[in-house]
C-alpha cells in the first residue's frame, strides 16, 4: 500500500490499470480544473487586453483599495493582503487535512477541514466587505478623488429651462460609471472577483458537505479519504486563481 515503486510506464498502457496511476474521480477533477482554469485564463486575458487599451487612464489599485476595518487611516492594499493571507492559510489547512487523510487520521481530517471552512467563510465575508466599500465609494468621489469620473445628469434648469446634461461628481461604482476611472475597471473588478468569489462560496459549501461526511464516518467505512484529496484539489485551485487575480488587479 505504500509507494508503488514497480510502476512500469510502458506496460501501463497495455490495460488492466490506469496509465496515469490515479483514480477516475481524481483524474476527472483535474480535467474539470483545467477547463475552469481556461475560463479564468480567458477572463484575465480579456482584462489584460482592455487594460492595455486604456493603459493611460486605468486607475491604480493602491489608490482605490485603501480601506481597512475599524481603522480610519489610508492603508493601501492592507486589506487585500489580509484576504490573501487568509486564503493561503486555508489552503495550508486543506493540504494538512489531505495529509491526515493519507494517514487515516479521522480526528486530524476533522480539525483541519474545520479550519479550512472557517478560512473560506472569512474570505467570502472579506470580499463582501471589499465590494461594499468599492460600491459606496469615497466621501470625495468623482474628480477630486483618484482620477475620478463625472456622471452626465439631465438637468431641467440648464439651457434656459430647456434642459440638458450637466456633469456631476460621482461617488462609488456601478456597472455603468465609477469614481475611480474608466467604466471597464469596475466591470472587470465585479466580474472577475465576483466569479472567483462564487467559486470560493461553492468551495465552502462543498467542503462543508465533505466535512459532515467525515463526521459521519463515511470515509472511515470506505477505507480511504480520497474524497478529501478531490475537494482539496478544487480548494487549492480557488487559491491558485486568487494568486493571479491578486497580481493582476492589485499589484500591477
Amino acid at each position, binding site marked *: 500500500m*505504500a*509507494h*508503488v515503486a514497480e510502476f512500469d*510506464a510502458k506496460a*501501463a498502457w497495455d490495460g*488492466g490499470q*490506469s496509465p*496515469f*496511476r*490515479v483514480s477516475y474521480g*481524481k483524474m476527472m477533477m*483535474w480535467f474539470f480544473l*483545467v477547463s475552469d482554469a*481556461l475560463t479564468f485564463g480567458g477572463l484575465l*486575458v480579456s482584462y*489584460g*487586453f482592455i487594460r*492595455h*487599451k*486604456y493603459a*493611460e*487612464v486605468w486607475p*491604480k*489599485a*493602491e489608490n482605490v483599495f485603501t480601506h481597512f476595518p475599524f481603522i480610519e487611516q489610508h492603508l*493601501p*492594499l*492592507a486589506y487585500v*493582503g489580509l484576504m490573501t*493571507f487568509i486564503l493561503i492559510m486555508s*489552503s*495550508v489547512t*486543506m*493540504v494538512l487535512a489531505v*495529509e491526515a487523510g*493519507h*494517514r487515516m487520521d479521522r480526528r486530524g481530517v476533522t480539525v483541519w477541514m474545520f479550519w479550512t471552512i472557517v478560512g473560506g467563510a472569512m474570505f467570502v465575508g472579506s470580499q463582501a466587505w471589499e465590494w461594499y466599500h468599492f460600491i459606496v465609494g469615497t466621501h*470625495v*468621489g468623482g*474628480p*477630486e478623488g483618484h*482620477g475620478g*469620473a*463625472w456622471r452626465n445628469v439631465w438637468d431641467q434648469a*440648464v439651457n434656459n429651462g430647456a434642459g440638458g*446634461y*450637466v*456633469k456631476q461628481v460621482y461617488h462609488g461604482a456601478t456597472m455603468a460609471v465609477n469614481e475611480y476611472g*474608466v467604466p471597464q475597471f469596475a466591470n472587470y473588478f465585479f466580474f472577475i472577483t465576483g466569479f472567483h468569489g462564487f467559486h470560493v462560496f461553492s468551495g465552502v459549501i462543498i467542503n462543508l458537505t465533505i466535512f459532515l461526511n467525515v463526521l459521519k464516518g463515511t470515509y472511515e467505512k470506505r*477505507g*480511504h479519504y*480520497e474524497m478529501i*484529496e478531490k475537494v*482539496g484539489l478544487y480548494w487549492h485551485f480557488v*487559491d491558485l486563481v486568487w*494568486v*493571479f487575480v491578486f*497580481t493582476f488587479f492589485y*499589484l*500591477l
Partner: protein
Amino acid sequence: MSEFHDDYPHYETMYNHDEAHGKKARRTLWNVFWIMLAITIFELIIGSMAPGHGWTGALWLKVLFIGLTVVKAAAIVLWFMHLGHEVKFFKYIILLPYITFILYAVFIILVEGVYSGYPRNVTRVDQIFIDQQKELKSGHHGGGDAHATEAAHSEEHH
C-alpha cells in the same frame, strides 16, 4: 476495504502513508507555505508603495511580479495539489495543453492590445472616455474644488 471486489489497482489508497512519512510531508508543506507568505509580503510592500512612476512603475518590476506569481502558482500546483508526485505522463496531460493555450492567449493580447490602442483604431466612444479621464486628471492636479470645476463644465452647455 470491503468496497473492492476486483483486481484493478486501488489508486485511492496508493498515496496513503505512515506517521514517519507524514511528518516529512508536513515539514515540506509548511516550508512551501512560508516561502509563499514571504513572496506575498514582499509583493505587498512593493505594491503598496508603488505610485507608478520612476522605478516602481518600471517594466522589470511588473515582470518580476508576474514571475513571482508564476512561482507561487507552481508551488500550489506541484506541492499543495500534489501534481509533482503524479506520474510524468499525467503531469504533461494536465500542464501542456493549458500552458500552450495560455501562452498563445498572452501573445495575442500583447499584439492586439497594443494594436487596438493606436489612435486610428480607437472608436469614438473610447475617445470620449479617454478625453474625460485625462481632463479629470489634469483638473485634479490643478487642485480646484469640485464645485468650481462642476460649474465650469456646466457652462460649456450654455
